[in-house]
């Protein structure tokens, strides 16, 4: 039976990835992975040469746990608590406890391996310079602390999952999950910022860009100050001292055993909580899918009918609806956090925005990035799933389908942009320049939404069973960025080049406005007049 448990874990691990069929996608994925790997390696090497070994070990824990934290939130919602395996396993003679154990082991395995791969340069660097004990500490503690992070998040989400049957529908359940994870992140960030803000003035953390030497020294100072501050934190500081010091003490053994013990306890609790409700929650999932009802509006307009069709596609999966909700609310929420931080003086001390009119521009582009980051416009054809063939077999107008998809993606993004600027206004920052920037951002979002679905239209990934594979885990998302981002980058760069060249805020904003109008008109005309005629 142990062998079978191992097999099932292997099956779950295999579900974490889907090999793309198109060579272009394979290349993009490889480049993306190496890019991430190189970035993290560069950070590791920089910290290694800027700080001492203790600081290097500390930042390694921090970076790997941060990465694992972000990944576990994503995978636990889209895979661990998704019940995608319910239809595969529920009629087989296998106990729910074993299914849950295999699922948890699979996520622990995948995330610790990802974290370990990123640690390879660190271990090599430590091997050159440092003591054997420090190397052993890093090799032991990074995976153990990663596992504890994974299990803590899974435990919290398991508690929500145990109330799954109280949720009226799956969308509500998913939104609650996302909200809770977001709140946990916000609480952690707030506590850290509050603690750091109380004990350390941000002026001391400023970087000096005068020469390379001053930059190196100021960076080294920042790394050292944050580390020293964390060491002073009650409890965490004590644990960290034993973990980063160059010798083995009895406290280190106690801390290590404590972490392993806590992880074991969390593991047992997660398995228990989820096993009890496995059939109940799985059945709810099937029942909710069977009784799904979609509203049909009898409308005359052809465009309205095409748009209605898009709403039906969104309505097929709770995950799609959740993405739509997130796309609408994420930008305003982040705007609130940004503006509160600005008013508290945290941001203004780090990035000195003294020139009038600059804050509006920074804010506008931040809203643009936030609206585009969580936008699902890159995979609208993949979302059609097994019904995609209808687009080709029914006498539907492909241009109208394309534009209704663009329209559907633009509505939540547009609302997000407008609400963010209303919040901006309520904080007392709105002026004519900011209003013009809002119009620019709205046009750029539309442009982005026009360009990002192109690759997905030509290469839809429709053979999915888990809806997260159709949206965020879809490799087409990465390629869609290649289509959409260049225009945003060009416009933002042009704006800052104009400002750097000495143009006033007003002249540069009006110039960018005219450029954006021209780009939007050209892209729109290309699609309406040329693209579909060629096709």
């Amino acid at each position, binding site marked *: 039976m142990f062998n079978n448990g191992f097999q099932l874990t292997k099956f779950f691990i295999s579900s974490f990835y889907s090999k793309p069929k198109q060579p272009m996608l394979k290349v993009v994925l490889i480049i993306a992975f190496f890019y991430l790997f190189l970035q993290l390696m560069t950070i590791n090497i920089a910290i290694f040469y800027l700080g001492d070994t203790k600081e290097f070990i500390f930042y390694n824990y921090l970076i790997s746990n941060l990465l694992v934290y972000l990944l576990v939130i994503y995978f636990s919602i889209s895979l661990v608590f998704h019940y995608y*395996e319910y239809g595969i396993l529920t009629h087989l003679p296998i106990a729910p406890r074993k299914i849950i154990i295999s699922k948890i082991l699979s996520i622990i395995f995948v995330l610790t391996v990802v974290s370990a791969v990123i640690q390879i340069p660190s271990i090599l660097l430590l091997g050159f310079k440092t003591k054997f004990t420090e190397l052993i500490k890093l090799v032991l503690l990074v995976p153990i602390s990663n596992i504890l992070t994974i299990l803590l998040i899974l435990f919290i989400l398991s508690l929500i999952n145990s109330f799954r049957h109280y949720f009226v529908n799956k969308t509500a359940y998913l939104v609650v999950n996302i909200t809770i994870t977001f709140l946990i992140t916000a609480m952690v960030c707030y506590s850290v910022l509050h603690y750091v803000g109380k004990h350390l003035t941000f002026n001391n953390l400023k970087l000096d860009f005068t020469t390379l030497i001053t930059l190196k020294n100021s960076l080294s100072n920042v790394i050292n100050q944050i580390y020293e501050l964390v060491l002073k934190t009650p409890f965490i500081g004590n644990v960290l001292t034993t973990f980063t010091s160059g010798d083995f003490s009895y406290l280190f053994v106690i801390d290590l055993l404590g972490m392993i013990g806590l992880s074991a306890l969390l593991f047992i609790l997660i398995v228990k909580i989820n096993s009890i409700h496995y059939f*109940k929650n799985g059945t709810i999932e099937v029942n909710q899918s069977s009784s799904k009802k979609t509203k049909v509006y009898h409308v005359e307009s052809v465009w309205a009918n095409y748009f209605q069709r898009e709403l039906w596609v969104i309505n097929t999966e709770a995950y799609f609806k959740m993405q739509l909700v997130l796309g609408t609310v994420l930008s305003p929420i982040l705007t609130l956090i940004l503006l509160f931080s600005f008013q508290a003086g945290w941001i203004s001390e780090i990035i000195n925005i003294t020139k009038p009119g600059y804050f509006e521009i920074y804010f506008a582009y931040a809203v643009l990035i936030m609206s585009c980051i969580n936008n699902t416009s890159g995979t609208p054809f993949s979302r059609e799933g097994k019904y995609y063939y209808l687009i080709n077999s029914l006498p539907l107008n492909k241009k109208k389908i394309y534009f209704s998809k663009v329209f559907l993606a633009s509505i939540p993004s547009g609302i997000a942009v407008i609400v963010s600027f209303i919040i901006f206004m309520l904080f007392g920052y709105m002026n004519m320049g900011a209003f013009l920037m809002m119009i620019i951002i709205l046009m750029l979002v539309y442009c982005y939404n026009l360009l990002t679905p192109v690759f997905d239209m030509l290469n839809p990934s429709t053979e999915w069973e888990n809806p997260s594979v159709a949206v965020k885990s879809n490799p087409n998302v990465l390629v869609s960025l290649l289509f959409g981002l260049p225009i945003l980058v060009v416009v933002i760069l042009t704006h800052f080049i104009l400002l750097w060249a000495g143009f006033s805020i007003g002249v540069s904003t009006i110039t960018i406005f005219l450029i954006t109008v021209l780009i939007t008109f050209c892209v729109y005309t290309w699609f309406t007049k040329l693209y579909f005629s060629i096709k």
Partner: protein
Amino acid sequence: MLKITNLKKGYGSKQILNGVELHVKKGEILGFVGSNGAGKTTTLNSITGILEPDEGTITINGIIKSGSTKYKKQFFFIPDTIHVFKNISGFDWIRFVMKLYDNDQTERMKHFITQFDMEEAMYKPMGTYSYGMLHKMMLIVGFTINPPIIIMDEPLNGLDPKSVLTFKKAIKLYIEEGGTVFFSTHLLDIAEKICNTVAILKDGKIILHEEIDKVVGENTLETIFMEKQNV
């Protein structure tokens, strides 16, 4: 073998099963027929644990339906829509299921793999399989592990003519070895040839469960079915 008593199931305000009563005996090849939406799949899903019925009891070999592995070892289920781990090969999947049923019969597995022309496909990821290949793979699993009863939802969908023939032979062998088959189908002519009993489901109730020879007589199953549907 399989006993269903007063099975009721609804989705929201819509009642699908209105007290299904059915007793399938050992050695039966039961063709479970009914119009679209009559509740065939709901019945099968309720037996196999995918759905929890609102009322009623189900027993297989005297074991009352529950989430226990003991109950689930009494049957193997082939659903109409087959969900799989897409990156896993058919071969790995069969080995896994054989171990779950404590029934490691490699030679028997190889025999059915050859019979269903799946030698090459078994080593490929199941995500690359066609609809018909997935059905063939599940039939191989079912006939290999040889459980007391095989339950199938539209098993002939997507099968090529040779596979249908293999399916008939495999069922014959399985029954000779003491098995029981319970499958839903819309293909009445094939059901007439393969099955020894038939059950008709209408408006969430069994309106007929009889030996096929007694039911058909001089007519065809198609005629009888249409009569029972009052068409």
